[in-house]
């Protein structure tokens, strides 16, 4: 396993979650380098754009198949493209939010093989062949809400809700790992997500209520 300690202190907010998920900014940067691109300090800046790309086709295969919310999706991906960008701008899955684009807030959290990951800090090329789940994939076909979603509605969870998709995905992972968490355990599990409306009291109510709904089945 890779060294999962954050090597740059800009992982603070996501430290715990990153460690849980076996993912770090170092891995992300390694991934970028492996994919044949370099990462800039500026969040959204890619060194090779749509125009440049057309002139110099990359060495990495760009047309990839992703499994998102149980469906296979073919998508054209730049070597240095983050999963958050692909989800939001290529697949139209705008439920996943970008709050910082740099592992600081957790708004972009999605599940990769059931593990919560910051999709802003993960390359789309890293998730080929893995099962991705986003907020759009929680509701059942018949419209039934996932127990965590139901708990949000019942508890009037969250305020502006920009952090909500990330928190909810992390909660889904939480009840999978610990179906009966204490309030403190839930807080620890969710500590990689930031809520600027600071609705933490209700967020913990939602987490415990959602866990209970799940246990009741």
């Amino acid at each position, binding site marked *: 396993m890779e060294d999962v300690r954050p090597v740059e202190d*800009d*992982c*603070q907010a996501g430290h715990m979650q990153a460690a849980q998920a076996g993912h770090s900014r170092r891995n992300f940067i390694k991934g970028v380098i492996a994919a044949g691109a370099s990462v*800039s300090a*500026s*969040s*959204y*800046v890619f060194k090779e*754009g*749509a*125009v*440049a790309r057309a002139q110099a086709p990359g060495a990495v295969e760009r047309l990839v198949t992703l499994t998102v919310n149980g469906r296979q999706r073919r998508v054209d991906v730049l070597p240095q493209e983050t999963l958050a960008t692909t989800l*939001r701008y290529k697949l139209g*899955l*705008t*439920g*996943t*939010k970008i*709050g*910082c*684009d*740099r592992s*600081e*807030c957790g*708004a972009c959290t999605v599940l990769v093989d059931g593990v919560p990951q910051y999709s802003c800090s993960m390359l789309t090329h890293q998730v080929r062949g893995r099962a991705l789940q*986003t*907020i*759009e994939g929680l509701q059942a076909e018949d419209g039934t*809400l996932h127990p965590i*979603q139901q708990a*949000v*509605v019942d*508890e*009037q*969870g*969250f*305020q*502006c*809700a*920009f*952090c909500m*998709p990330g928190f*909810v995905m992390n909660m889904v992972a939480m009840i999978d790992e610990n179906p009966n968490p204490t*309030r*403190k355990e839930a*807080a*620890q599990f*969710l*500590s990689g*997500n*930031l*809520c*600027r*409306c*600071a*609705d*933490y*009291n*209700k967020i*913990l109510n939602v987490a415990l209520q959602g866990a209970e709904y799940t246990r009741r089945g």
Partner: protein
Amino acid sequence: MADYKLIGKPYSIADLVAKVTGRAKYAEDFRADGMLFAKLLSSPMPHGRVRSIDTSAAEAMPGVEAILTADDLPPVDAPGEAGLTNEPMYEGEPILAVAAVDETTAANAIEAIRVDMEPLPFAVDPLDSLRPGGSNARLDGNTMVNRELANVKWDDVDWAAIDRGEMQTNGEVAEEWEVGDVEAGLAEADLVIDETVFHQSMGHQPLESRTSMAYWQNGKCYLHTSTQSTQRTHGAAARGIGIAPEDLVLVAEYCGGGFGSKIFGSIQMKIPALLSQKAGKPVMMRITRQEEHFIGRARPGLQGRVKIGFRRDGRITAMDMFFVQDGGPYGMSGDYVVVPDQSTLMYQPLSHRFRGISVYTNTPPRSPQRAPGGLQAVSMFSPLMQKAAKELGIDPLEMIRINAPAGQAKLGRPDENGEQGNVSSAFVVEAADLAEQTFDWQAMRARSGQRNGTRVTGVGVALSSFNAGAWGMDGLLTIRPDGKVYIQQGIGNLGTGSVFDTGRAAMEALKTDWDQAEVIWGDTSKHLPWSIVQAGSNTIHTHTRTNYAAGEDARRKLQEIAAGDLGGSPDDYDVADGRVFRRGARSSGLSFAQAARRAIELGGRFDGHELPEDINAVTTGAATALAGLGLMGVARDNYPTGGRVISHAIGFAEVEVDVETGAVVLKDYRVSTDVGTVINPRGLAAQLHGGGIQGFSAALAQKWVYDRRWGLQVSKRFYTNRPPTILDVPHEQPMAWAAQDKPDPFNPMGAKGVGETAEGAGSGAVLCAIADALGDGYFNRTPLQLDLILTKIEQLPPAFSTLTAHV
């Protein structure tokens, strides 16, 4: 308490399912065919003049479609802010914007643009600008005096004392007033507290940055944006773009946080709008976290000195305060004037004096931030109240009661006749009594000073009072032939729930179930009435009034229609459960659907073809567009007013301070409040606790750090300027709250707002609790971070002066 059908009852908020399934669309979630992306070129220096811009290399790049500079923007008078500038006044201020086929190309174009800049003198600490010979943040002055730009220097001030951390109060100020005789009040006091105080500046940091997407169609601009308000933002955004309001459609159904920074949020909206006009294609401007940090607005910091006189029994005889405000480059916030305003209310001093000045600095622009001035007042003064209470041997909660405002208490700056204003209601003693019982304050107090290894328990209590409502806006609804009540809301949807909560006032007037209501909001093409800004905790009070007024108007019309069709007089009829019916004979009546069809047949005032004369022109326009769709309820809020609407909260915090490491753990937080009638208990709890935690953030966490030599900031992201995480707040058991549910006499349902009041209560209580844990550990500065706490514990000399900004 009145017997309400809807008010005070929890219910399911209509937009939650959209939010929790990812279907809710925020500004950055919109796409348009051919959409370009904008990137900003921002100032690398705190103050400079653009000598020349060479865009030739960028323009030659394939995929670059338009470049917008300050010269393309409608002019703005000094000291106003344009959005793009040739004289940037803070690091990170946008100079120009590029639109290109994708963000990478736009960013590469930004890299290829050469801007030649002449550095200009700068000031990041307001005191540096007041020093004789000190440089100014602006070339045209460092402050405003009598609404004119002016240059103020403090020549006869003991600067050596200021450098030692003792604020001097003989420098020239821009504002001053006095109520009663402060010198006499201080002279008769048994105890005078005299302290230099410092409150930091801090960014709003909403999780959603201020992103917008714009396109033009048939001469109209369509703007998808992130703003707190809607109807009021519309006018501001149109002005910024330089078009008539009727040529702008503004869509903002969801907003990912604003906290005052997006009341209009219109300054940057013009950039994608004008880029789109220039390029002839839609433009999305996504703001990065780092850009948001600079352009995303901030609360002004304060440097000051305060003297408070107390009688032996705890009553405050005098408050004398002197403040310098860190105004940012455009100086748009009046926090320093609000501090005395709110203090005169919270502490009811027998005499009071204020002197203050706001000084321009080359730091990010200021705007109101949740409880502007109110938060700073509570953070600075609560620990002083606690200190006095200790010296006088008085329970700090009793100290709050002794000085508490009651009823229509007086507050604020006197008018030209020397008269102060008053509030509509204050039930502070009652909130204290409620807390005493519900929270067992005496048991909490008994834990003060308890040691657990190296950790010492401290408890603190603080009163916070802040604005909670306005009046005079309009309500508008239609009851349509589908039997539903369509409530038009011009306020925004920040997730507080108030856009729905206030709509319930209309249904309360109609005594009809909530599932028969549809709330229309967030899109100015949907005909929204004249509304208050979604800010200042105004909406709950202001728009329960408007919607109740519209509901009452609709009810009268329903009664008139029923009387006309079924005989008798309107008063013989009642309205409830989606029907108008004869009193005592429920089966004789009309359903809302039937009445709506009759209203359309009758026309005139029944269906909005004739409108009241006293409504705002904006409402007239909206109502005219809706005329003929059904029975219209439309009215200006003409309910009686009884003074400024203010709510009150008392926060109680329990902390553990590790006296070896200086670490603070927040163990518990409880809050008791006077918010009038509770409209939505879950929404209220969210405001009380969320606001309280933002208060913790002000007390303990957020600040800026500047490299003073270069005027550059080193704390530009969440991780260097970090708001609390879930582990930083009490999380082992739920936080408690209590509300008295005592109606405000000047609202049809007795409602008052709460969002802002909540923040100071959290901040003040935590600051007091930490000071309590350290015995008499009074601190003169916020935020209270490890360095200050350890310096105090170790009794070391401070590393920097109390008055130094941005360290």
